[in-house]
């Protein structure tokens, strides 16, 4: 019994029951399969993070973002004062989170790939693109680069899904995707 010392002093060479051995083998194979699924998806899958990242200060990132917005602003989200920016395909796109907004709103073309740089100017935030359901962690002091390819068009929202203080539930941004 498991609450008493093993019945046989030499328990390590007792025979192992058949169904137990079989299960260990099955479980091991499944474990290995799941492990190799990850590198496999890096090779064949279309949803992988680039791991490209840099250290950056909040000021420097804000500056780059504003420079991009100055060049490519095409409108405003309602009367929120947040610009809608339509960067040309092939340029670097910047988006920052800070308490409690995503800035700026972006306009993409479906099927094109954009080099999206993400960072936070203050605390941690969570980039949660809905209803697509892509979720990324946005860290202050780090600039993360993701190459993102919209495959559906319409209006999308960026919710914040990392708790970031009392205004967390008001932090929504926008990405618009137009058909080509």
């Amino acid at each position, binding site marked *: 019994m498991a*609450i008493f010392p093993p019945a046989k002093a030499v328990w390590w060479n007792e025979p192992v*029951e058949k169904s137990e051995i079989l299960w260990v083998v099955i479980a091991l194979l499944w474990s290995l399969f799941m*492990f190799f699924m990850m590198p496999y998806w890096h090779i064949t*899958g279309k949803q*992988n993070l680039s791991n490209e990242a840099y250290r950056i200060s909040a000021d420097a990132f804000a500056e780059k973002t504003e420079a991009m917005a100055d060049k490519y602003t095409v409108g405003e989200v309602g009367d929120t004062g947040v610009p809608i920016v339509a960067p040309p395909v092939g340029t670097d796109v910047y988006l920052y989170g800070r308490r409690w907004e995503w800035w700026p709103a972006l306009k993409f073309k479906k099927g094109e790939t954009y080099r999206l740089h993400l960072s936070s100017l203050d605390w941690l935030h969570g980039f949660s693109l809905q209803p697509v*359901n892509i979720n990324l962690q946005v860290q202050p002091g780090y600039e993360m680069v993701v190459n993102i390819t*919209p495959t559906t068009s319409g209006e999308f929202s960026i*919710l914040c899904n990392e708790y970031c203080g009392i205004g967390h539930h008001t932090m929504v941004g926008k990405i618009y995707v137009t058909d080509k």
Partner: protein
Amino acid sequence: MTTALFRTCPDTGFKIDLKVDKLIKWNAVTAIVFLMVGGVFGLGVAMTRWPAVHLLPADWFYLALTAHGVDVLLVWLIFFEMALLYFCSAILLNSRLAAPKVAWVQYGMMLVGALITNVAILQGDSSVMFTSYVPMKAAPAFYLGIILFAVGALMGCFVFLGTLYIAKKEKTYEGSIPLVTFGALTACIIAIFTIGAGAVILIPTLLWSMDFINYIDPLIYKVIWWALGHASQQVNVAAHISVWYAIAAILFGAKPLSEKVSRTAFFLYILFLQLASAHHLLVDPGLSSEYKIFNTSYALYLAVLASMIHGLTVPGAIEAAQRKKGYNKGLFEWLRKAPWGNPVFSGMFLSLNMFGFLGGISGVMMGTEQLNIIIHNTIYVPGHFHGTVVVGTTLAFMAFSYWLVPTLWQRELVFPKLAKWQPYLFGLGMGMVSVLMMGAGTLGVPRRLWDMSYSDAAMPYEFPAAAFLMMGLNGVFALVAGVGAIIFIVQMVGTVMWGKKKVPAAAAPETAAAPAAPARTPEASAVSSYGSAGTMEVPGTFVLALIFLVTFMLYYFVNWKYLSSVWGLS
């Protein structure tokens, strides 16, 4: 020093050091009180996330959520685990406890620490969640309390190790330590690692909150914090699996199918469970995919392998024991004829199944590097861990309490009828809470969010009606589970205070958990043999395991399919 006084447990025949008796009682009762406090906060949170009810204002919601996380995840579980460590060492080994004074320091520091952190949270400027990610800052007392609590727990670990040493030296048992004690040792070793990691990150953070240090890198904080936060979940796993084995032994006299396999599985935990902090960093910048894949999978999923092994061997041991008693018809007579009205069994068996099906499968899914993209920080995550630490660990500890409390105090349960229902109310209620949060998370609903209708946001976003429906139902089932939790707490506190004294001969046979074995002499052990000896095959368990595997595979692939439908990322 060897002047310890003992009493003999009339139910089990174990020799119980009177000092350890008292320590176990205080740790267990304190744990249960904090479960109550944390549970109340949890209900407040769940009632706020029920869109139609939306109980608390925003600041109180975030405060309650912080308190909930701290009080249940840390305080309730770790106090109970201290009781378990003392039980598995001193009592199971018929030994005196090493350094009872240090054990009281453990108790005192943990209690003071827990109180300090709770006060800091209630004062309102420490609503940082139990993860307290920098640069969000809490009051210094918040971190200080947690540090005291952790150092207290570390002392408990040392007392446990000391007791193992004394028992060996004083030859209070023969041969190897029991499997359950081995499981507790696993938990203890992981706990020591965990607390070390905690010290490395929380002490600088405390200094930072007092302005002695001016910068802590938020990514490095997260990496080290999760070496604490994730590994400590494996302490819970090792502890509740030990409890499963213990209950199988106590109720059924079940022997492990194979000591070798079960112990190796625990050993895999020691080797690999320290990994997996990357579960929480899979979509963070600045870490390589190689690191993420290796770490998130516990090397080659070797710790998952270990859990799958326990998932077979625990019910397998029960099946073998039941078949030996003659419940041999068909695949499942052994299970049908199990004592489903005994909360010790029903709680344990629900815990075993729901931990595997809800907590386990979802954990592996979301711990997969790329799949994490579709659930990170959504309410899927709390859905997952209410499937692990609540219907897994908490329910297992509840089941064990139904045996431990009447046995240690030698009192009968105050409400034996209610006790029959309690594991189902709490377990199934929580199981639904877990499933519904996972469902809403799949639709993208964020965790730790006061208002999913975004009515205060400058830009609107509307979740599909199904998401609102699931969060509403989540509230309903949280109430069901809440009733279950209240019954448990009243039952335990009531039993301790007003329970009828047991007649020494241990009259109550079933609900009060009949004695497992008479006083055991070394010779008695020679009679018992391997669980798997003779004809012992466990076909029923094997079929259950295959059902589990197929569910696991289907769910795993469905999520890859889902991932493949989202925008391209490279």
